[in-house]
């Protein structure tokens, strides 16, 4: 386990800012305790200071996971955000997409969101902007990337993709083995 280097921090923050914009500083600087990012086995974990101090007592090969896994760095040092980060991203999300109840299940199975399933979308969403996907009852379902800007979404036909699926809470069951 080690802290992130500057380059790695920069890559990660760039990815996070796609979804939560400048609210990252609320993750870094919290009023209710010191939380930090640590790297272990290519995965980035967001842990409180107390847990971190306890975790240093476990040997590297036996340590599976600490705190919350935000994502991992791939072999080519790109940062990939995992669904386990949803709890921290959802409250700070800048651009949100609401999915109709009919299409909810389809999204939870890993499919993209079509125009016919789109309930609401935040105004001013750019194309390829990172978005957090909610159900109509304001339950965060996962995240994605807007395939079309809000304007285009209005004009497009019902079967075209409006949000590319990136991660959904169905993954907790589908990829149980690989999530840490």
């Amino acid at each position, binding site marked *: 386990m080690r802290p992130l280097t500057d380059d790695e*921090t920069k890559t990660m923050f760039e990815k996070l800012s796609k979804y939560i914009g*400048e609210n990252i500083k609320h993750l*870094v600087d919290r009023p209710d305790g010191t939380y*930090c990012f640590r790297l272990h086995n290519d995965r980035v974990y967001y842990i409180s200071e107390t847990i971190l101090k306890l975790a240093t007592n476990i040997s590297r090969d036996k340590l599976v996971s600490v705190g919350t896994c935000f994502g991992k760095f791939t072999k080519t040092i790109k940062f990939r955000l995992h669904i386990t980060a949803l709890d921290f991203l959802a409250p700070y999300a800048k651009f949100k997409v609401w999915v109709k109840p009919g299409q909810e299940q389809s999204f939870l199975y890993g499919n993209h969101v079509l125009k016919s399933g789109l309930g609401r979308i935040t105004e001013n969403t750019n194309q390829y902007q990172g978005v957090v996907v909610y159900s109509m009852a304001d339950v965060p379902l996962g995240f994605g990337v807007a395939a079309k800007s809000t*304007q285009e979404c209005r004009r497009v036909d*019902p079967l075209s993709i409006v949000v590319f699926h990136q991660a959904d809470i169905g993954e907790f069951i589908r990829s149980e083995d690989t999530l840490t």
Partner: protein
Amino acid sequence: MAACSIEDLLAKAEQDEAEKLKSITVQKELDLEFDIGNLVAYDKNRIDIRQFREQKKEDFLRSLARDNTQLLVNEIWKHPTERVEEVIVVKLPEPTTPLPREKPPPKPRPPTKWEEFAKLKGIQKKKKTNLVWDDVAKNELHRLRNIARAQKIKVPGVGLTPTAQQSKTDLARAVNVAKSSTASAGKFQDRLPKEKAPRNTGKKRKFQPVIGNFSNEKQRQLDLLKVLDSKKPRLDVNKAVNKQMREDDREESAAKFKKGGKKGRKGGNFSGKGKGGGGKGKGKGRAGGKGQGPPSGKKGAGKPGKR
């Protein structure tokens, strides 16, 4: 009387002893061969055929078996015993009878790719000789040390002290050292056409400690965030374009609404769709049409057909 009884007693005792011994002593012409490791006894005595025929065969065989077993057990008891959990146990020696194979012998495995290649090329396994001190090198080393001492500098360590036979690694190291001994540490040195860039040379990476100064870390991350923010362009082109488009649409719809109001007051909810929407406005346009009811004059002709 008493004397008689004592003698009698003694005689009886002797008889008893003899009887006991009889039960455990067996007379044989030839001694048996024993393989106690396998609990085996080999009896090479001839069998008296007449005796065999006279007696009942079962009885003869049983007595023979009993005798041999007795001898075997006697032999077993000769070995050292020990007590294991209230049971007396004899430590058996190694078996002497060679037993045949339990499983079939292993088949010769097919030669590996390397073995085939080596056979093809005629490569033999070369044993690396143990390192022997090289007299030539010794002289060179001493010479360099003398020079170093005279000029008060250190002896160059890395592969530069010459030896008679330089191995591949030594030569490679020498090349690397020579290459990086330039003013810019070998950064602009050309490589030979097929030479690969060395990837593993370099110092070991150093990371911050796991539990360092938290406030420092926080400060550094916040600074990094500030830098990232400043790098983002002030004018987001996409956003600006979208905003502009929205404004235009709104203006058009407002204009249409006014016109519609003058004519027939059937203006339903026009949601930002002007002629500028072009062929893409099918969905929302139709919704607008529903709200309107029967289309009015010119407007009506425009709606379902052209769009």
